[in-house]
């Protein structure tokens, strides 16, 4: 999942980026509204975390502009002021949730996770496609209730495919949502990850959960058992 952070406070921005990257997200960070708007308009983001009180171009303006450009990824606003006027203004401009500073990073993770699930159309944090289940909060994958040990990148690939189950996801899209802008797109690292993933979750190759659609990309093709 690729996240955008627009926050002018450098230490908070760096800290958030670090924590979110450690959690397996690819993160683009901007220090002001203009740069943030550029990143949000030019790159396929899955979610944006925007501070309302930005210099030059306010967070509210960035949100309005992004929504005007039909960017529909969820937006979480950060506000230093806890009054309702600010919260309502941000939400009316197009944000989906708010967090008042100061906050616990765990709280931020929970909101981000909920918004990502919500935007993919899932209402619970555990995606279950029997016998496979993926817990987006714990970032755990189980097959037949047995924990599978995945690397962070493998988990990200699987999570993205499962959140968009049934849809064909091109390699380009997958790359863009898994890595930030500095990634070398020409490498075949992705094929390697998918190959290892298949081996780990389906060693006997009986389920075939990840389908290769020739020339177009990959598709997660197990039927949902219970979703929500």
């Amino acid at each position: 999942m690729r996240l955008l952070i627009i926050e002018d406070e450098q230490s908070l921005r760096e800290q958030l980026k670090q924590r979110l990257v450690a959690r397996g997200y690819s993160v683009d960070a901007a220090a002001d509204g203009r740069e943030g708007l550029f990143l949000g308009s030019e790159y396929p983001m899955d979610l944006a975390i925007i501070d309302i009180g930005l210099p030059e171009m306010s967070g509210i303006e960035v949100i309005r502009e992004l929504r005007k450009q039909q960017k529909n990824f969820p937006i979480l606003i950060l506000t230093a002021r806890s009054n309702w006027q600010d919260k309502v203004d941000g939400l009316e401009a197009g944000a989906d949730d708010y967090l008042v500073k100061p906050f616990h990073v765990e709280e931020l993770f929970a909101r981000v996770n909920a918004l990502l699930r919500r935007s993919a159309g899932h209402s619970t944090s555990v995606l279950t496609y029997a016998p496979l289940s993926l817990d987006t909060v714990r970032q755990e994958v189980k097959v037949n209730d047995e924990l599978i040990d995945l690397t962070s990148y493998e988990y990200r690939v699987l999570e993205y495919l499962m959140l968009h189950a049934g849809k064909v996801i091109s390699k380009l899209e997958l790359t863009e949502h898994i890595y930030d802008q500095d990634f070398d797109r020409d490498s075949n690292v992705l094929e390697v990850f998918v190959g290892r993933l298949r081996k780990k979750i389906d060693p006997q190759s009986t389920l075939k959960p990840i389908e290769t659609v020739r020339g177009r990309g990959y598709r997660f093709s197990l039927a949902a058992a219970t979703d929500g």
Partner: protein
Amino acid sequence: MGNTRSLTTRLVVSASVLLATFLGIAGFSLDALYQKRASESLQNELLSHVYTLLSASRDDENGLPVLDKMMPDPRFNQIDSGLLASVKGHSNGYSWSSVSTLGHEFVFNQKMIPGQRYTRVDDDRMVLYFGIAWEDYEGVPNNYTFSVASDLRPYREDLNSFRKELTLWLGGSAFVLMLVQALLLRWGMLPLKQAATDIKQIEDGRQEQLQSDYPVELQALTGNINSLIRHANASQQRYRKSLGDLAHSLKTPLALLQAAREQDGQQLKNTLDEQLPRIDELIQYQLQRAAVMGKSSVAQSIALLPVVEKICRSLAKVYHDQHIKFDIDINADISFRGDETDLMELLGNLIDNACKYGRHHVRVSAISTPSLVITVEDDGAGIKSQDRVKLLQRGVRADQKKPGQGIGLDIVNEIVGLYEAELVIADSSLGGASVSVSFA
């Protein structure tokens, strides 16, 4: 006085224009009237001289008029007297001129039809021509023209001195009127000046309100200024009190943190986890409490429905996963008198609580009978009656609460108090709590 933004300038300019116009018209018409009357009286005088000439004439052998060299009015007999006369007979060639015409080129070439009169102004003379028919003894009418001229110089001197006097009088009255006007203006503007002085006194801190007895027209304004001042004072005091409370209440957690420097590891983390949210809540609570504007007599009316809709739309996003159904039962014409931010805080906290503690159903309703009652209901577990009293208690300091309780209802209580409203907690027909705010 300077510019037209000054009331005094405006009044002085308009009164002066009015005065100038009035005096101008008066002077002009008085002058015209005087000229008319003077010229009329001169004409009458000339006519009376004609009659004098007629009565001084005697009949000759044919019964036709003949005038003597010397006339009863000495002015006719004196050279340069300014009064000239001449008589001409049209048929018999009779011609007579008074002695006073000697040396003057006085042309009496006008032939008048009997009964006709004609006045002409020549340079500095006014001439009256008068035509008459005189019957001789045989009853044949003979036409004569009697002409009398008078020097206009004395008349013009009169007019000039009249004008001088007129200017003097009008100028004098203009001066007096301006003086009176200035005095009246000072008197009329006195209350405004007093208000300015009063406000200056307030600025200097020597008094707190506009005290003087103001005229009716100003009372609405001064009353509002007074209530604004009261309002500003109250806000300021609230700020001061909040800051005082904040400083005071931060001491305890800060002292605990200071003491925690000695602790290590898990113990330190526990203290931080306990005290940091507490500090955050204290700051939020006190600052928000201070920011409440409160009731003011100059508050505007805010339509309630759009604000409620905005908050519900926003909260529907925040509580997306809860699939909350919002029922809004508010007439479009119901409005709230007060500050919009206060209303937003009040409703935001109440509706947010309803979403937090309710399950899937939140109802916001309002009636205005005519005092406004806003009710927020949910379908949650409700509030136990022993807890209700505690929730309604005002002035419970936030530093005496356990952390994590949230400050939403405290702010609601603060706003309710400042608007002299009443908070009522009851059971809702939805199954959960019903919280009503009744404004006085």
